[in-house]
């Protein structure tokens, strides 16, 4: 099986009628994703690669029983679109946009927590479950179906790691890009119970990076479950006090270094590979 994006997912695309959204919608359909419509206010009645376009999320819920959304809405409009999706009762909200104001993220996160919906992102490649498609912008050709759950703070590095795993004959149940911002809807630790409950997921691969405390909380969360894990953490040579592309990849002089995260993860029994290329061997030793 997989987590969150499963056989019961019926997703809409918000902001799918723009140039990028339309192309990504086409690729998500090709990947076999169960998309049931698109929502762009003012474009109701149009057609997007064979999908009906609605004016509101509420309409999409009523007409095509949507229960999830992937949003290509740009930063300034993310808040309104996501809150509309939560209020309409969707259970999974994937926000692709980067440069979302942090208070907008916090408001969406609070709304999701109150209603029990899951928010992925912002600044994320999204989620992919080989066999059930993807809600996001990642390539499908590096992800094979398999037995590993995967969590990543980075998009492009996740693809490289997935490609390396694939070349070693390893695939994934679900890969989630949690988002590169310092405050995100759902952090890595919160995905652990779902992966642990999935009978097909036998182990977890984590692509972390400097800054914040997500890896530390992940280590604590894994202690409560019988789910072996291994990791690669990027940014060993990054200087303190400089933002490395992701707003979340900022380590202080005291906190958030690769050495610190590695120590905490290893103390919790999570093997940390020194480079992406070493991950398959680390997985063979530790997970299978």
């Amino acid at each position, binding site marked *: 099986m997989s987590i969150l994006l499963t056989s019961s997912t019926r997703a809409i695309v918000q902001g799918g009628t723009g140039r*990028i959204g339309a192309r*990504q919608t086409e690729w998500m359909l090709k990947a076999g994703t169960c998309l049931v419509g698109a929502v762009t206010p003012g474009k109701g009645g149009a057609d997007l690669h064979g999908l009906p376009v609605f004016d509101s999320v509420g309409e999409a819920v009523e007409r095509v029983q949507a229960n999830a959304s992937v949003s290509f809405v740009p*930063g*300034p409009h993310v808040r309104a679109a996501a809150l509309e999706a939560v209020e309409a009762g969707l259970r999974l909200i994937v926000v692709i946009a*980067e*440069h*979302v*104001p*942090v*208070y907008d993220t*916090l*408001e969406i996160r*609070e*709304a999701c927590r109150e209603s029990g919906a899951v928010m992925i992102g912002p600044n994320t*490649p999204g989620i992919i479950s080989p066999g059930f498609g993807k809600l996001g*912008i*990642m*390539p499908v050709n*590096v992800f094979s179906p398999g037995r590993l759950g995967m969590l990543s*703070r*980075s*998009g*492009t*590095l996740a*693809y*490289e790691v997935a*490609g*390396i795993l694939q*070349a070693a004959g390893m695939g994934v149940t679900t890969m989630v890009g949690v988002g*590169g911002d*310092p*405050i*995100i809807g759902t*952090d890595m630790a919160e995905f652990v119970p779902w992966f642990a409950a999935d009978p097909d997921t036998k182990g977890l691969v984590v*692509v972390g*990076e400097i*800054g*914040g*405390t997500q890896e530390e909380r992940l280590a604590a969360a894994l202690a409560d479950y019988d789910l072996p894990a291994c990791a690669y953490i*990027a*940014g*060993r*040579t*990054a*200087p303190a006090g*400089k*933002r*490395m*592309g*992701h*707003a*979340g*990849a*900022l380590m202080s002089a005291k*906190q958030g270094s*690769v050495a610190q995260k590695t120590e905490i993860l290893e103390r919790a029994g999570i093997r940390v590979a*020194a*480079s*992406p*290329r070493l991950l398959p061997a680390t997985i063979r030793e530790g997970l299978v």
Partner: protein
Amino acid sequence: MKLHEHEGKRLFAECGIAVPAGKVVTSAAEAESAARDLGYPVMLKAQVLGGGRGKAGGVAQAGDDAAVQKEARRLLGSSLRDLRIEALLVERRVPARGELYISYFLDYASEQLWLLFSSSGGMEVEALPADKVLRLPVAVRRGPDLAALRSFLEKQGLTKLGRAIGQLAESLYACVRKNDLLLAEINPVLIASDGSLVAADARVEVDDNALYRHEGIAAAKASRRDKSDREARAEALGLNGFVELDGEVGILASGAGLGMASMDLLQAAGLRPANFLETGGRITADLVQGALDLVLDQPGLRGVLVNLYGGINPMVEAARGLVAAVRTRDMGIPVVVKLFGNEQEEAWGLLEAAGIPTVRGIETEEAVEKLARLLGVRS
């Protein structure tokens, strides 16, 4: 983006928080005339970013024209923690019978907004005993829990000031949300003789991602000269991240994780990165050409590693940009390109036809090894 004290105080005042009467000046003559208008005694405060100015000697008091001249001359043009003092805030001194501390700050470690309050102001809040400080998580859709603040004030014996402090907490929260502030700290809050509260300082940081909805603050940012020339070029190009380092191999990557992994793997191979550069998801041929030019303009380079992935980014466009940059320069050093994703075959063809060393694989390490071989470094 961090704001200067006087910029922060303007935002506070707009939200109904009392601040001392004051004026920003850039010369001793201006300081004297401002002091006369405000009335003595006055405070002269260096407008540099960061806290702890008092301790570092960036704040002075003056009781007459001569003292203002002397202190203004001493401060202006000198440096505080390597930051040049270019302006002073001259303020009428507010007689106070007590000092408080209040701040809202968005903590990335706990991923929460916090209200911090203490009945002891004027010193670093971290230095205060835990029972003297109230730490309240704030739900951003509800605002601060004023009842919890009131009960803390009762315990601290501050019932008389309860109303004014509650009002200040509310006004400051309104200011935080109105202006998308990541940090809004008033330390100290002065308790004036009539019991009113005055913000004697302002440490304020604004969310860069929200500047589009705050024109006034964005204009202040545009006029800052706090970046190196190359950092300013990176920003003008629209790159997501550019950090100068002190090595000899330039990096151009299309993702933060890829960029950091490139740095780590270069270092492991005995090569030191000269920079971190992440393009973000809006690649065009022009952007990539500009980014490679920026990387190549760094002094002392021995080589460049380009590490691109095409998902949302078009790889043929990227390849065109790389070829254009290499063609228009006198290239004395190798540029190794690893690229995969959409349109990869066509992109590889363009790069190889231009004689650019290209790695047709997914592993960054392959590209690092290729570059190391070209540079004669054994890994």
